[in-house]
């Protein structure tokens, strides 16, 4: 064995390490691949060795190779081996490799669960850290489910380093295992107020990320974030919060109103550009959300635009870019305020930076109006000419088309101009967007009837000059345009002046070099042209030769296409060829054929909406899943294809049953299914029902005939010679406008009336006044796209059903149900119970000291008011010495029996926070419907929205307070309910105290840590002292004050004489001897709890602090000052914090040898062992690590991180405790205290 090790280490000397590998790769530049493959062979050899150091080295090299693109998944198992090494340097390599190459389908991941769990609970924070970091990269749903509990525990770790990582990784866990979100959320929320800024910012990050995807579930956190926003100085956190608000405001306009002011302040005050930018962004979002209701925010808009202008003018290209980006957001709702900066944006078009030019282009899109469209496009055309590099030019091209075609060609006043722009664009070399231009041409020609003649003329020219477009076969992107040209010429051939010439152009031999689909269109449309020519000729009977010549032309040329290798072309050509031959025969017999031939192509084509096919509803009684014919066996794959095709063709049917596929369907069964489906559809609100009304709506919308088509303005000549014509049209258009203006002046009032009558559809009411003056050259008859009957317009088609964030759309405001408090746990959990984290969580709760650990409990404690009764009872129980929880029980049930609260407290809180005023004056009305934020916001809309300030002032003060009170009551009820749940789980915890061995053992007597502090005839004080989890130097003292007399006690002041070691934390500005005012008054018989925080330096020694409570006792006629002295005893126990520990970590801790031992013997203890353990757990804040018969190991940790381990054994009334701790002084004192505890009972 030893020899082997020696041999291994000698071998190692010759192994390459990472540096050697890198060096080697650099030295083998020319045959790198070969070198690496030999290296991989070596690595494979190394991985076979037992020596973990060799393996780690090999894995380390693999990580580098993986980065270079080599697949290393074959080494996955070795990576797991290295991960499980106990040495940190190796472990780190293992996790690094895992994080780089593990993914969900890596099967060895299953093997890592326990290893990761072990590392997570390791006493070494770096082990934990590295495991968390690695896990974040390869967490799978299984891992997430199994480890969620462990990670949740780590969120309360003492080290901020770990807390921070744990919080962050929870996000990944949520993504993979959405069920964990609700149980974990309270703790996550708590971390928003973590004392460590890193942890806080991590929590903000996680919640922001969650909220970004499902904002409405996080609305209730708005007040909390608002507080953070106004108090935090960390710009990173601020940015995140501000971004989050940007996502929330669209859901809750009132939030926006609240935000405007602080955000504006930030904009003015901050020097950080990033923060400024985000503020501006969110203000924009707010303004967008408000834009409907509140017109008077022009100051804010102005501020934003002005700040953005500064950004855009900055020499820093990054700021310029972002400025433009944000500007485009404003543009959507407040185009006017951006339009005034047109100069600046046009200037950006000349920027040398492509990203900036693209952004500026985006902006132009929204800046055009009827007035400036031509001018802007002219500028863009110039840029097109200048642009180098096809990508930017293509971008320009698409932008020009986008700009012109936006919202149904709203801004185009002159379509001749647009067509000529399109024609000019065809001259672009090497563009990829030929099809885009083509589809625009088609769209315009089809939908704008008035332009057809002009379009046809242009297209004919294009066809004639086709050689210019196709001259270079490389540029075949643009030849798509010919497709449109041919189709337009054919379809609207009646507008052609010289159909013969065009026909000739379409049948040139060169055409055969075009792509197949274009040839096909050519052939088809040649036939249409032929029909037109025939009709034109037959009117003139003398000249039948022309018609015959045409036929001959076709007969001559078409065979070329019949030989085409493209099926479509071939088929069409041969079809048409035969047809023409037949016609020629008829012509020779002088039969009139024109009418029949024309009839071939009669009828008008209407445009169809792109989504129309998908929207065809499934007809009644058609079940797409049912077989039409029984499928022959073994044709599974074919069926699959057919089925999916069926789905794609028809609109998806909601809630379709998955039915057994091969069942024989008889008539009866079918009828039954139909019935079921009908019922389902009736109940399904999403099912698109066939209703006659929807159909009608569509037909009304289509009503093409009702749209007045203005006659073409004949001042525009239809034929303009030469190609670059758009400029001429610009000029012509200007002239026309001038003329129009003059005309309008003449018949101003008449025009006004007409306008109303005409009811022009597209006349945007959004356009500025000046635009109204520009009448389009011809009213565009934009034929509406056709949709199938019964289809409803909806935008939901575009949502991605696979978005992982969908699963996280979980309502977080609902109080947790009992079953939800713990994370769901895998059923086949391994048997080694003590190592499992589930236990750990139980141990925490088990310690029968409920107000200790979990977030919820802490929260409960803060609201101590609600708790008082319970405390009192507990305390009484304690004083009575015996008894059980029985007396508490009846009252609790009573509370629960009370009517359940109508609303969740968060919802009403949010509502209250948001509504500065809009509480209606009738308090009952206010209390009743405030059940959800939704109804509440509805209410706010009812309340006079425009003048909230006034409403606030006039609001009777009383009303407000009374509603407030009501809400409070509600909250209280809610709390009580929660508390009740809580007791339940405590009960469950009790039973499992000793990790499952307890069932038959007798129940524990009740215990309380509240010890009497001082008492006189007026007042009694009991207190409990606990370490602060978050801060190693703080101790929290909870004092319950109970009024024992019949008078009112008020003005209580709590003061303690500080020692060198321990100091009462007083608010800023208070002197070292000032008392703290207890924040409540006590009516007779009432008790309440207050918490005081002490800072402690040395925790090794117990100590006592002297203190005084002064208060005023107020009777009916007099009031007297009283005081009560007390001694606060900080035991060493109070510095301990119950911390779970797994047995493996525990044994490692003991092995490390850092701990010093001490022991203790207790004689004559005659109580069951499990009682004994429970007492140590409860009174001294230990947790049981492992218990075997009458022997148990326990663990605790001090607030300053000292580990304390106990081994407790019992035999015949003698209990021996062996203890180890890294701080012997502390240990001795704790042992003394344990001894004292047992001597007392």
């Amino acid at each position, binding site marked *: 064995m030893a020899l082997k090790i020696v041999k291994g280490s000698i071998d190692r000397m010759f192994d390459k390490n*990472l*540096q050697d590998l*890198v060096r080697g790769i650099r030295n083998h530049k020319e045959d790198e691949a070969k070198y690496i493959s030999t290296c991989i062979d070596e690595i494979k050899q190394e991985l076979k060795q037992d020596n973990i150091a060799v393996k780690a080295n090999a894995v*380390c090299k693999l*990580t*580098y190779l*993986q*980065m*270079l*693109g*080599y697949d290393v998944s074959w080494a996955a198992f070795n990576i797991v081996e290295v991960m499980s090494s106990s040495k940190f*340097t190796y472990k*780190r*390599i293992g996790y*690094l490799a895992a994080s*780089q190459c593990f*993914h*969900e389908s890596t099967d060895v991941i299953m093997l890592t669960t326990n290893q990761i769990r072990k590392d997570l609970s390791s006493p070494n924070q*770096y082990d934990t850290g*590295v495991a968390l*970091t690695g896990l*974040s*990269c*390869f967490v799978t749903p299984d891992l997430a489910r199994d480890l969620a509990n462990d990670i949740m525990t780590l969120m309360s770790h003492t080290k901020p380093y770990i807390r*921070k*990582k744990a919080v*962050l990784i929870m996000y990944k866990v949520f993504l993979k295992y959405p069920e964990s979100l609700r149980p974990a959320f309270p703790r996550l929320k708590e971390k928003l107020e973590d004392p460590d*800024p*890193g942890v806080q*910012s*991590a929590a903000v*990050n996680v919640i*922001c*990320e969650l909220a*970004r995807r499902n904002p409405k579930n996080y609305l209730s956190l708005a007040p909390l974030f608002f507080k953070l926003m106004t108090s935090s100085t*960390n*710009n*990173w956190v601020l*940015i*995140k919060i501000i*971004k989050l608000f940007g996502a929330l405001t669209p859901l809750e306009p009132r939030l926006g109103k609240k935000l405007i002011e602080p955000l504006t302040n930030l904009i003015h005050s*901050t*020097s*950080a*550009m*990033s*923060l400024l*930018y*985000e503020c501006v962004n969110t203000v924009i979002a707010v303004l967008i959300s408000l834009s409907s209701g509140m017109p008077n925010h022009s100051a804010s808009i102005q501020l934003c635009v002005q700040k953005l202008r500064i950004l855009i003018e900055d020499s*820093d*290209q*990054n700021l310029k*870019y*972002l400025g433009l980006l944000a500007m485009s957001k404003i543009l959507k709702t407040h185009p006017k305020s951006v339009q005034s900066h047109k100069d600046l944006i046009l200037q950006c078009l000349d920027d*040398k*930076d*492509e*990203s*900036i030019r*693209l952004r500026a282009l985006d902006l132009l899109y929204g800046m055009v109006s009827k007035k400036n469209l031509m001018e802007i496009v002219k500028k863009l055309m110039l840029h097109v000419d200048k642009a180098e590099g096809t990508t930017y030019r293509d971008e320009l091209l698409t932008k020009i088309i986008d700009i012109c075609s936006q919202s149904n060609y709203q801004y185009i006043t002159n379509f001749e101009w647009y067509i000529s722009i399109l024609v000019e664009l065809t001259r672009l070399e090497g563009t990829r967007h030929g099809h885009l231009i083509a589809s625009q041409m088609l769209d315009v020609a089809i939908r704008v009837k008035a332009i057809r003649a002009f379009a046809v003329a242009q297209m004919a020219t294009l066809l004639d000059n086709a050689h210019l477009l196709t001259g270079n076969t490389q540029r075949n992107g643009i030849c798509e345009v010919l497709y449109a040209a041919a189709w337009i010429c054919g379809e609207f051939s009646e507008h052609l002046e010289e159909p013969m010439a065009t026909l000739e152009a379409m049948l040139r031999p060169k055409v055969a070099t075009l792509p197949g689909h274009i040839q096909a269109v050519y052939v088809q449309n040649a036939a249409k042209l032929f029909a037109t020519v025939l009709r034109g000729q037959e009117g003139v009977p003398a000249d039948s030769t022309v018609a015959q010549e045409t036929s001959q032309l076709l007969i001559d040329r078409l065979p070329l296409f019949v030989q085409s290798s493209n099926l479509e072309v071939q088929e069409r050509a041969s079809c048409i060829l035969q047809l023409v031959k037949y016609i020629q025969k008829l012509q020779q017999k002088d039969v009139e054929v024109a009418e029949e031939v024309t009839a071939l192509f009669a009828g008008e084509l209407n445009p169809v909406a792109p989504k129309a096919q998908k929207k065809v509803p499934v007809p009644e009684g058609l079940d797409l899943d049912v077989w039409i014919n029984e499928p022959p066996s073994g044709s599974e794959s074919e069926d699959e294809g057919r089925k999916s095709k069926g789905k794609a063709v028809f609109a998806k049917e909601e809630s379709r049953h998955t039915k057994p596929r091969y069942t024989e369907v008889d008539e009866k069964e079918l009828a039954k299914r139909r019935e079921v489906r009908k019922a389902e559809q009736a109940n399904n609100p999403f099912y698109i029902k066939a209703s006659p009304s929807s159909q009608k709506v569509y037909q009304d919308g289509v009503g093409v005939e009702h749209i007045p088509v203005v006659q073409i303005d004949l001042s525009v000549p239809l034929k303009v010679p030469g190609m670059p014509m758009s400029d001429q049209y610009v000029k012509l258009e200007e002239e026309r406008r001038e003329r129009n203006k003059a005309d309008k002046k003449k018949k101003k009032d008449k025009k006004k009336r007409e306008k109303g009558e005409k009811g022009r559809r597209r006349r945007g009411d959004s356009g500025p006044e000046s635009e109204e003056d520009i009448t389009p050259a011809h009213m565009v008859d934009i034929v509406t796209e056709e949709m199938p009957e019964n289809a409803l317009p909806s935008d939901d088609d575009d949502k991605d059903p696979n978005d992982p964030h969908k699963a996280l759309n979980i309502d977080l405001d609902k109080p947790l149900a009992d079953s939800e408090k713990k994370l769901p746990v895998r059923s086949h959990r391994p048997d080694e119970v003590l190592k499992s984290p589930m236990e750990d969580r139980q141990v925490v709760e088990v310690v029968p000291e409920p107000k200790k650990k979990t977030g919820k409990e802490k929260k409960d404690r803060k609201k101590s008011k609600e708790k008082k009764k319970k405390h009192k009872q507990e305390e009484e129980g304690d004083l009575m010495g015996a008894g059980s929880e029985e007396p508490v029980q009846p009252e609790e049930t009573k509370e629960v029996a009370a009517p359940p609260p109508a609303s969740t407290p968060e919802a009403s809180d949010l509502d209250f926070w948001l509504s500065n005023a809009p509480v209606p004056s009738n308090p009952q009305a206010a209390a009743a419907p405030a059940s959800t934020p939704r109804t509440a916001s509805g209410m706010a809309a009812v309340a006079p929205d425009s003048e909230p300030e006034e409403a606030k002032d006039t609001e009777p003060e009383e009303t407000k307070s009374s509603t407030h009170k009501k809400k409070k009551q509600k909250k209280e009820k809610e709390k009580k309910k929660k508390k009740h749940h809580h007791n339940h789980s405590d009960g469950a915890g009790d039973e499992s105290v000793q990790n499952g061995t307890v069932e038959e053992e007798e129940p524990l007597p009740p215990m309380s840590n509240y010890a009497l502090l001082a008492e006189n005839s007026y007042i009694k004080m009991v207190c409990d002292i606990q370490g602060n989890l978050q801060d190693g130097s703080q101790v929290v003292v909870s004092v319950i004050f109970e009024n024992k007399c019949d008078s009112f006690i008020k003005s209580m002041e709590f003061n303690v004489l500080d020692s060198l070691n321990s100091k009462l934390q007083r608010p800023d500005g208070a002197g070292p001897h000032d008392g703290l005012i207890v924040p409540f008054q006590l009516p007779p018989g009432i008790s309440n709890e207050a918490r005081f925080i002490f800072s402690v330096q040395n925790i090794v020694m117990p100590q006592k602090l002297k203190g005084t409570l002064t208060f005023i006792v107020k009777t009916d006629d007099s009031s007297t000052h009283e005081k009560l002295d007390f001694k606060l005893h900080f035991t060493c126990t109070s510095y301990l914090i119950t911390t779970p520990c797994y047995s493996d970590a525990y044994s490692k801790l003991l092995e490390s040898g850092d701990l010093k031992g001490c022991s203790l013997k207790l004689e004559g203890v005659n109580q069951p062992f499990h009682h004994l353990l429970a007492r140590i757990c409860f009174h001294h804040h230990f947790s049981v690590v492992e218990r075997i018969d009458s022997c148990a190991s326990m663990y605790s940790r001090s607030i300053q991180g000292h580990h304390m381990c106990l081994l407790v054994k019992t035999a015949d009334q003698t209990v021996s405790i062996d203890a180890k701790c890294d701080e012997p002084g502390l240990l001795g004192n704790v042992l003394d205290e344990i001894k004292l505890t047992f001597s007392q009972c």
Partner: protein
Amino acid sequence: MIKAILIFNNHGKPRLIRFYEYFAEDVQQQIIRETFHLVSKRDDNVCNFLEGGSLIGGSDYKLIYRHYATLYFVFCVDSSESELGILDLIQVFVETLDKCFENVCELDLIFHMDKGGFSAAPARAVSAVKNINLPEMPRNINIGDINIKVPSLSPF
């Protein structure tokens, strides 16, 4: 969220690559190549943002990069990150590397890949590096005061 961190040299050789979402090795290399192609074409005096487009994740994602001597540092982030913030983060990251390796250069990254890999890891969480305190404010920092305490990366 940061989706990926790519560091490569002027010739497109990867020097440190972290993907926070799984991609197969060949896809990763493809992404690196295309990113390099995009980034290397750009002058030094143009803006540092690029729309990633089809590269990773679609239109919600941006490439934010900085060019230092022979190295490109490219972060691929989604819209929940502040663009200027990420630029500063890169700066902080580079300075952190500088501290760890004293006068960081390209070779450090490959020679200490194991360390670099994990120093980049917390950067995913951004917040981790966000707590790093620079001794003096680097030029061109947009975030304002960064509270930074360099967690010395090699206490092990």
